[in-house]
Every structure is written in structure tokens, then in C-alpha cells.
């Protein structure tokens, strides 16, 4: 019913079927209220992070002992911390690290999950072993897995990314495997196989594209989780090390002064919440439009 009313004009427009479908999808996405709101929020945050040198004093680690614990004012709109560092500057620069960690680990998790899931769906003999390993990893909540891996790798940005990615690979692998198993049985895959296409070609040209919708949806939710998890790791002292600011470690440093100098921990927390909120809104929209049968986030 709903599909029948998707503007017929778009379908008749002289476009390739793929491009027409993409246009219809984009239009439906943009009509989705939470997608629009989430996209705008995220875009603003990303732009502010990119423009950090222009918007702030450009020196997130510069101390200024005379400004110690300066409350929010015209000079320090988010206030200053125990070293007199400008919180606004630190939050903007922290966004760069936090968003990068979230983005990189979500992408890495998606890539790893896609590889594992596709391998498991295609090479049925590997499936048993791979899925048992994934089950074992899935038994752990992602945050604990990330803590464990990060404890082994040591506190650096790269190890946080690897730890978070590894923690979310099993979930992604499951989603891709389930989608791939369905596609695998379709006629055109058989046709490709009969016509002598190589396994790699079939997997990446025919199967993977059909697993993209659920993969993109869960990628979005993993991005939100990764931002929250990075903050938690930093807060526990096993994230990216100070003095480079990340949203999590600004809160951790401000915690001791949370009563007297509440602004130190308040603003980075708001930033995390807003980023996660925007991403979740975006993910809800993507799920509704791309993959309505996907019950809930990864």
C-alpha cells in the first residue's frame, strides 16, 4: 500500500534504476522527522569539531593559573578547569578525539563484522567454529570486552579504537551472517555461481550489497555506543591519556571538583549526550526507512 504511493514521478524520471531508488530513499529519509533532527545535530557537532581552531582559543592544553576554576563568563563561556584551561576549547578539541574514536571503531567493527559474517555464511564448514567464537565474545557485554582488551593493549587512542571495534564485531557479524544466509539462497546467486563467477566476486558483488541495509543501521547505533563507551573507558582512566582532551577524560578530571566547579564536567557530558542523541535519532530514521523489520538496534 505504502509503496504504491511512492511518487510515481520519481520512478518515471529518466534515471538508472539504482539512482532512482537512491533518490526515493533519500527523499523518504529526509521526510523522516527523527532522521532530519539527528542529521542536523550531528552535522553541527562535526562542523564545530572541524572548525575548533577558529571557534576557540586553539590551545586545549594551555594552562592559565590565574583563570583556575573560572566560572562560565564572557571570556570562558564554559568556564575553566583546575589548571585554568578553557573548557569550551577542550570540549571542541575533545570532540575531535571522541568522534574519531566512535567513527573509526564503528567502521572497523562493521568491516570486521562483514568479513566474519560473510565468511561464516559462505564457507559453511567454518560457520560452526566462527559462530562459537562469536557466541563466546557475545556473552560479554561490549564495555567489559573493551575494558579487557584495552587493559592488554594499554591506554592509547589506537587501542581504544581496536578494543571498541573488537567488542562490536560479533554483533555485526551476526547481523551480516543472517542477512547473507537469506541472500545466498536466492536464484541470482545460483545463476552467478553457475556462470562461473569466483567466490570473492559473488560474495562482494552480489551478497554484500544486500546486507548493507542492516549493516548501516547497526553501524549507526554502534557509533552512538562507541562514543558512550569511549567516555566510560576514559572516565575509568583506561582511555586516551591526558592532557589531550577527550569528552570522557575531561569529565574524569572534573569529577573531583564536581560540587564547586560543576561546569568542568557538565559541558562535556552534555556534548556526549547530544552526540549520542543525534546518532540514535539518525539510526531510528535509517532503521525505519532502510530496514523496518529490524526490531531494535544492534
Amino acid at each position, binding site marked *: 500500500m505504502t509503496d504504491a504511493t511512492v511518487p510515481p514521478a520519481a520512478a518515471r524520471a529518466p534515471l538508472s534504476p539504482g539512482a532512482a531508488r537512491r533518490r526515493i530513499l533519500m527523499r523518504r529519509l529526509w521526510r523522516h522527522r527523527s532522521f532530519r533532527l539527528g542529521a542536523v545535530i550531528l552535522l553541527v557537532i562535526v562542523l564545530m569539531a572541524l572548525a575548533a581552531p577558529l571557534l576557540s582559543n586553539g590551545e586545549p592544553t594551555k594552562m592559565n593559573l590565574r583563570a583556575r576554576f573560572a566560572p562560565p563568563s564572557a571570556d570562558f563561556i564554559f568556564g575553566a578547569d583546575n589548571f585554568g584551561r578553557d573548557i569550551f576549547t577542550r570540549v571542541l578539541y575533545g570532540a575531535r578525539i571522541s568522534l574519531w574514536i566512535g567513527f573509526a571503531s564503528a567502521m572497523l567493527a562493521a568491516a570486521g563484522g562483514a568479513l566474519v559474517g560473510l565468511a561464516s555464511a559462505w564457507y559453511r564448514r567454518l560457520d560452526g567454529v566462527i559462530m562459537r567464537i562469536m557466541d563466546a565474545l557475545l*556473552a560479554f557485554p561490549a564495555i567489559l570486552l573493551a575494558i579487557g582488551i584495552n587493559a592488554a593493549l594499554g591506554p592509547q587512542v589506537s587501542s581504544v579504537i581496536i578494543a571498541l571495534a573488537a567488542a562490536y564485531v560479533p554483533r555485526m557479524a551476526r547481523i551480516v551472517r543472517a542477512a547473507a544466509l537469506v541472500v545466498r539462497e536466492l536464484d541470482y546467486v545460483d545463476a552467478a555461481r553457475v556462470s562461473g563467477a569466483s567466490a570473492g566476486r559473488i560474495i562482494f558483488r552480489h551478497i554484500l550489497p544486500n546486507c548493507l541495509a542492516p549493516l548501516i543501521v547497526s553501524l549507526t547505533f554502534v557509533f552512538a555506543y562507541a562514543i558512550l563507551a569511549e567516555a566510560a573507558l576514559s572516565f575509568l582512566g583506561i582511555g586516551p591519556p591526558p592532557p589531550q582532551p577527550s569528552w570522557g577524560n575531561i*569529565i574524569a578530571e572534573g569529577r573531583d571538583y564536581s560540587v564547586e566547579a560543576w561546569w568542568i*564536567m557538565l559541558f562535556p557530558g552534555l556534548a556526549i549526550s547530544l552526540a549520542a542523541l543525534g546518532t540514535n535519532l539518525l539510526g531510528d530514521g535509517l532503521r525505519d526507512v532502510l530496514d523496518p523489520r529490524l526490531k531494535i538496534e544492534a
Partner: protein
Amino acid sequence: MPRLIAFRIAQAIPVMFVVAVLTFLLMHMLPGDPATLIAGDMADQDAIAQVRRDLGLDRPVLAQLWLWITNLAQGDFGKSLMLNQPVAEAVWERLPVTLSLALVAFVITIPVGIVLGVVAAVWRDTWVDSAVMFLALIGVSVPNFWIAILSVILFSVTLGWLPSSGYVPMGTDFWRWLASLIQPATVLALFQIGYLARMTRSAMLDVLDQDYIRTARAKGVSPRKTILKHAFRNTLMQVVTVSGYILSLLIGGSVVIEQIFAMPGIGRLLVQAIMARDYPVVQGTMLMLGFAFVFINIVIDLIYAYVDPRVRYD
């Protein structure tokens, strides 16, 4: 049913084996030489060699793995360096704290999350739905350690209603036990409440679309009873399947919450061990938690099998 239990346990054994191998490998990914780290910065070559021999690190990896597995089979999870105590004992001592915290949070999460989800589904596309779903979205977007700090400032520092930290064992005084848990458990539950409310809503909407709901309406069943009897039971079935996941996440989340409220639980032990580079404790704790999660999944599967007639009678 007994056959199902046996089957599920048999299925869990390879998973537990993989968990054990993975935790072993995790600690062997360590950059550098664990013996040097464990012996400490001040140790000389002899001391390091001694540590290496004590831990069996001078042997081939496979032999070490074999030792690790055989020790586990005998209930030996390793020995803590900082506490000078077996890991199993250290974890066991702290188990009641983490379990109390996670279970109280669980008891808060399940009814609140379900009710919110059902309410949103029943009044779908109205302001009630929007309001509830907005709250749920906030729940899954706000970092809980940050909320915890804000909550302490409000309820403990400013209002003085609740203790800001510490844990009172249930045996000492039930009410003080509950008072010490209510704030951390509620904060811990917020994310899961949001998650569960979102899941319940979509499960309920799915159920409300089913043909058997139309059948019930065609029979003249009132809207209230259609929801409470026909739709709710089927929704609950799907909630059971994620409840194990939720409990696991609550245990995982307690690592952070215990840190903020200075509660002497397993999570705190884990973080202290990481800071002190007490690798046997990190390894042993992860492993025991892994076993616990596998166990939770088995229990949930069995509960599901019991409540769903389609599984129960097969």
C-alpha cells in the same frame, strides 16, 4: 524439559572453552614481557626469571594454555599479585556487592521498561508515545557515569537524602543495604530502561498488528483485555529473550558505577587490577564473568522454553 536442560548445558561447554582460550590469549597479546611488568620496575634479571618460572612463562604457549585449562578445571583461576590471594576467592568476596547492584537495577529496569514500552505502543503516535519515546531516547544517549555524578550532587550533597558512596551488606541491615543501592542501581538502570522501553514498544506494535489480535477484537474482547491478555503475553515472550542480555549489560555497567559510588564489587576489583597491572586478576575476573554470562543465557533460554508453549511441547 530435562533433555532440553542437558542439551543447553552441552551446548554451553564449547562456548565456555572458547571463553577460557580467549581470556588466555588476551593476556598474551600484552606488548612486552608480562614477567617484567609483574616483577615491577625495580626487579633485577634474577627476580624476573623467577617470576617467569613461577608463572610458567618460560614454557611454550600451548603448554601454558594446557596448564591454564587444567588449572581452571580444578577451580584454580590464578593468584592475585597485589592481594596475595587466589583470584577466585577475591572475586567471590566481592560477588554480593556486584550481584546486589545488578539485581536491584534489574528489578527496577524490567517493570519500568516494559510499562513504558507498552504505554507508548498503546497510545502510539500520540503525545504520550512521543514523550515516553523521547525519555527512552535520552536514557540510551546519556552517559550513566555523568548522570551518576549529577545525581550525587543533587540527592546526596544538596538534598542529603541518600548516601553518596559505600555499600552496606544485606546481612547488616536490610534497609541501609537498600538505601546504599537505590541511587547507583537507578542510575545504572536508566540506559537499560530506555533500551527495554524501545524494544517493548516495537515488539508490542508488532504483536498488535498480528491477525490473532484482530480475531480477539472480532470476538468482542474489550480493548483493555485485548492488550492485557492477548497482546501483552506475546510481547512478554520477546522481552524474556532480551532479559538475559539486559542482566549481562547491567553487570558490565556496574564496573563504572561501582567506581563512582566506591562500592567494593567485582568491577572495582577489575579496575584496580588494571591500574596495578595485576594481570592474573584481570584474566581471572574476565573469565569468571564470562562463565556467569554464559550461565545467565542458559537460564533465560530455559525460562523462555518454559513460558512459550511452542517450545514447551516440542
